[in-house]
């Protein structure tokens, strides 16, 4: 199948999912996966800014060695709430609930997800969990760290542990329902001809993500529930004062929370696979390897949680097993990175904004992954555990990995979502700013952590100040860079250039319907006769790649 080459200015959009119905009620009671995706987009952006606000407070406090902006207890609450909001209310739903929700039915040629009502329900559950958590933050906050380690959380903390725990417990069901919906949809709703190995890699990675969601989330749900009971009724199995074992809590908690890292990064990898293939106009190198490495990451991700327990009373023999298995998870990750780079080799790359994010992802994810090996090694982890090295490492994965993929994907599919183009020049500019700001924020933290600066303190010895000043400066640049897309996305919804059905000239199913799509996605159920990423022969591709006047202005 050749890319559709149409450069005429599209006619004013016909009836689509946005203008099909008007009024608040038509949005709040919608069963359309595309509208629900937008509801999610709005709410996670809201939480992202709250989480960002806490990040700002952390970085401001750490500008100087003394605790002059925040007291130690306030600081504990601030970093805890930064973690809880960012992890449970932004990163975990970010790509699946917005881009995944919007695109999965379209990419397989279906009219909707298998359970539209459950999809809407998941958003309301998310909101309910969010409201309860925000109540906890406003009522007095929580200071246990996002990990809720007992006995501090069950006995000693004077903060709103139960309310926050309840918010996270409820929010977990939203994640479970999303995962359930995706798996059933991908199994039963594929259009005729859309075989498993014709699916875009975005779908494979979302399938793997959904597996983690349905297998891991219930375990953390019951764990948080038991923890809340333990705190309220003084009865339990975790707190040593009650005869329990706190390490059991850590086992159960990390059984979910380590795989949760892959909930955050796997969808991002799916986005990156799309971006790399499509912006280098070349079939992905080793499609089936990339597809199965997603599943391998989902499975291996469940075997490594013990590396969070290296400095607890966990048996050293179990530590050895976990260390070995943690190294093993590097294999499927590396397969992906090598396949992406192999795809780029001798291809016709166009450096549009989404591609800049994709290239940024590859670099940052590699740094994040490699530094993870330091922490997976028993001996070095003893030195690095609970230092800023860890903080830098997981931010490279979560911000450098998950967030880059999210922003890249948002730019890439924005013409389809909004029916408008974002301003390309500003897009590239902000992508660059974000990349620079991110590295300036977190690279110094590797060094500070390696030199021994512990995490989770509001004050620190003066010799670490230089790293913290750099980091705060970087965070300011990063924050500024984030504001730019926030502004121009909103701007483009009204003033952006109308997008064609297929602005990037790609073969994927989602580009074969109008922008924005009609409520039922396709006029007629499509019949798929082509492979994923099937581009025109090389000579023609290059012509198409070059002849794109609307992108060559900058």
């Amino acid at each position, binding site marked *: 199948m050749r890319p559709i080459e149409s450069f005429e200015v599209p006619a004013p959009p016909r009836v689509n999912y946005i203008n099909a119905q008007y009024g608040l009620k038509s949005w709040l009671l919608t069963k359309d996966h595309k509208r629900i995706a937008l509801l999610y987009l709005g709410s996670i952006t809201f939480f992202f800014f709250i989480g960002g606000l806490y990040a700002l407070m952390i970085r401001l406090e750490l500008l100087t060695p003394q605790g002059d902006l925040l007291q130690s207890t306030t600081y504990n609450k601030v970093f805890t709430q930064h973690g809880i909001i960012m992890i449970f209310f932004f990163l975990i739903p970010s790509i699946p609930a917005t881009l995944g929700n919007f695109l999965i039915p379209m990419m397989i040629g279906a009219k909707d997800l298998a359970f539209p009502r459950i999809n809407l329900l998941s958003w309301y559950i998310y909101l309910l969990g969010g409201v309860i958590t925000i109540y906890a933050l406003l009522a007095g906050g929580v200071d246990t760290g996002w990990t809720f380690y007992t006995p501090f959380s069950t006995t000693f903390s004077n903060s709103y542990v139960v309310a926050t725990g309840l918010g996270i417990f409820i929010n977990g069901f939203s994640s*479970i329902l999303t995962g359930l919906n995706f798996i059933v949809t991908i199994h039963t709703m594929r259009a005729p001809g859309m075989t498993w190995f014709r699916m875009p890699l975005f779908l494979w990675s979302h399938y793997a993500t959904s597996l983690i969601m349905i*297998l891991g989330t*219930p*375990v953390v749900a019951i764990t948080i529930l*038991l923890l809340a*009971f333990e705190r309220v009724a003084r009865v339990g199995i975790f707190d040593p004062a009650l*005869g329990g074992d706190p390490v059991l809590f850590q086992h*159960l908690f990390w059984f979910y929370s380590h795989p949760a890292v892959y909930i955050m990064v796997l969808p991002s990898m799916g986005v990156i696979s799309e971006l790399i293939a499509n912006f280098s106009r070349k079939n992905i190198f080793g499609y089936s390897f990339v597809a199965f490495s997603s599943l391998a990451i989902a499975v291996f991700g469940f075997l490594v949680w013990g590396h969070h327990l290296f400095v607890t009373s966990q048996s050293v023999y179990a530590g050895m097993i976990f260390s070995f298995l943690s190294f093993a998870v590097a294999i499927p990750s590396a397969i992906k990175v090598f396949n992406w780079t192999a795809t780029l080799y001798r291809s016709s790359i166009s450096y549009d904004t989404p591609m800049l994010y994709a290239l940024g992802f590859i670099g940052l994810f590699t740094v994040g992954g490699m530094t993870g090996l330091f922490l997976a090694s028993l001996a070095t982890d003893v030195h690095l555990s609970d230092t800023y090295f860890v903080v830098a490492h997981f931010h490279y994965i979560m911000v450098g990995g998950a967030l880059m993929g999210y922003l890249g994907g948002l730019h890439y599919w924005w013409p389809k979502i909004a029916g408008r183009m974002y301003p390309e020049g500003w897009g590239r500019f902000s992508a660059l700013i974000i990349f620079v700001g991110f590295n300036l924020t977190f690279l110094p933290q590797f060094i500070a952590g390696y030199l021994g600066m512990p995490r989770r303190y509001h004050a620190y010895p003066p010799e670490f100040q230089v790293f913290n000043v750099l980091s705060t400066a970087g965070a300011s640049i990063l924050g500024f860079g984030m504001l730019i897309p926030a502004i121009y996305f909103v701007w483009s919804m009204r003033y952006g250039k109308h997008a064609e059905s297929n602005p990037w000239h790609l073969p994927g199913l989602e580009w074969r319907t109008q922008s924005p799509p009609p409520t*039922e996605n396709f006029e007629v159920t499509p019949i798929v006769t082509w492979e994923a990423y099937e581009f025109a022969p090389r000579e023609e591709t290059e012509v198409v790649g070059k002849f794109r006047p609307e992108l060559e202005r900058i």
Partner: protein
Amino acid sequence: MAIEATTQPVHGHRSLQHHFENMEQQREAGTLGMWIFLVTEIMFFGGMFLAYALYRSLYPAAFASASNHLDITLGAVNTGVLILSSFTMAMAVYFTQVGKQRPQVLCLVLTLFLGLAFLGIKAVEYHDKYEDHLIPGRLIPGNPFNPAVQEEGQPIDHHKLHLLPGATLEKVEMFYWIYFAMTGMHALHMVIGAGLLTFLIIFSLKGRFDPEYHSPVEVVGLYWHFVDIVWIFLFPLLYLLGRHFEHG
């Protein structure tokens, strides 16, 4: 079957939702969705089974002492009640598949009744534990498990609770917490199941289900059987495994 499907009009059945191609696809999605939900349920209970297995292996004497106090007769009767309800549920699915409405309603009502009977017997058991001061939790005033209460010199009901050598009250309390957490979570699932059954009965009285559209009955059936399976494990693990603790 395939030939039949093509000869039917696309939007034939009144219960076909707009985004499905045909009833077969809709049914398949419903069943698959419930199975995946049951996977999450298995993992949900899995966390508690893990805690049980761990502490039972660490404190066998205390767990045996506490387990011996549970009422095997009531537990066994309840197991029978639940198995019978599973059977009537399976028959309800059967009668829906063959399109016999009256026995279908009857089976659903029987299932609901048996489920409520289970919950009733469970309530009696809980009440017995309450009478014997075996409800765990340090916040409960006068709880014999509470070290503060023990220090005040209040008598502990040793005739009610025979402590085997090596057992401590702290770990006995832990057993009862696990017992109440697991059976309580199981009972909560029964209550939800009873709610679902009530809806099924209303819809089936209205004649909404037929051989072509019976997904809801089938799916609730899967859920009900799952809850039954959880009890099949809970019964021996909580009521029976404490009898011969000296062998571990």
